[in-house]
């Protein structure tokens, strides 16, 4: 079940597409929609958290060292964080490129 994101056949759909298991949206990794990913230059990061405030996905959190980073399972690559970053610490890089 863990890797099964949706019912296989029409007969398996709950009436009215009702969902009875709360919180299962986290199992759907919207990060797969991403065309570009944020790449961080921590030497420029001042840990202000402006990216965290603007992220429409709410997928940014602080790591153990206090840097703000996106969870790539959910980051859709919109680039708002890179646009808002005061110091230009975030670059959007096309997926598949290093």
């Amino acid at each position: 079940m863990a890797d099964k994101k949706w019912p296989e056949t029409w007969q398996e759909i709950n009436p009215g597409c009702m969902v009875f298991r709360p919180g299962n949206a986290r199992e759907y990794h919207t990060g797969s929609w991403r065309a570009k990913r944020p790449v961080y230059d921590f030497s420029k990061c001042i840990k202000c958290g402006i990216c965290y405030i603007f992220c429409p996905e709410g997928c940014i959190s602080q790591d153990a060292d206090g840097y703000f980073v996106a969870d790539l399972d959910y980051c859709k690559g919109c680039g708002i964080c890179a646009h808002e970053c005061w110091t230009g610490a975030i670059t959007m890089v096309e997926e598949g490129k290093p």
Partner: protein
Amino acid sequence: MTKRVGMEIAFAAAEAAALCRIDVIAAYPITPNTHIPEHLSDIVADGRLDAEFICVESEHSALSACCGASGVGARVFTATSSQGLMFMGEVIPIVSAMRLPVVMAIGNRALSGPINIWNDHSDIMWQRDEGWISLFASNGQEVVDMIIQSFKIAEHRDVMLPLNINLDGFQLTHVVEPMLFPDQGEVDRFLPEYKPYAALHPDHVVSMGTLGLPEIFTEAMKAKDMALINSKKVILKIWKEWEEQFGRKYEPIEAYKTEGSRILLLTMGSMDETAEAAIDELHKRKISAGLLKLKLWRPFPSEELRKAVKGAKVLAVMDRAVSFGGASGPVGAEIRSALYDEPDRPLIINEIIGLGGRDVTLEDFIQIAEKAAMAEKKKPKEAYEIYGVRGS
């Protein structure tokens, strides 16, 4: 005990809904259905029914409120007409997709424009493809009966779909007719308490109205289609139960004097009884004609139709709406499609009649039967015609 009561049919519809112990009514007035919610608000205000009457600011809100109320497990009723039904439009397919058994009476009225408050079927035809069960009543008694049947059908665990009962504006809504009313005990015996499949409640988590991505949407549409197709079994079963308890028979297509008829007329709604009188007159004149009264519009009873037309040479289908620029009227197109694969299908003529409140008379049906008889000899050029239109 059953009582015979003379009453305006719109009021009777409200009384029938009240007998079903509805919990919530959300409605907005629009001619000609207005007397239905108006009378229900009286019934609630007089304390005869313990229900919430939500005065909303529009039909869009009316059906949205019904959707929410049904989602928490309430038995819900509403009514509308014409532009009101169109204004509900955005919510109509959502209620059926969420499988919520909302019951709605539609006092059928022409769609604008030009603005017109009188009867035809353009309002229901406009929303026919949205996943609701759709019934047509010929008279007040059928309105009362169908409303009571409706909750049992819509709420059945093998159905769980919204349902509309169509009663022609003015021709039915505003007519005073004697009707048999079952008492509360009889209705309670027929209609069990509503036990929802799921209801929104903090203790039992459920998400309704979810997103359907391309990976699942096709399957969701197939499931919705099958729900409506499979509802026919339950409708037939509940109509049988109704007949056993109340003695009045309901069928998807009712046949009137069709035995051995070369010509068949097919009508819906208040035209049915005028057409019956026309058939009696035709029989007096030794013309072999019969009548099919279509009661169940969705799910469409294709199988019953194929059986009903067996042996007939010409079928004249009445439509009370125009499908502008279409191949036929909406009912005509449906019937042609259902019969196309039959090797011995009758020739079909399609008459669009009774638009925006124009009277449909006994004489009209006699003329249409004569047109059908002529069509048997010489097939008409056009797939449909707007009957009685001035200007050749």
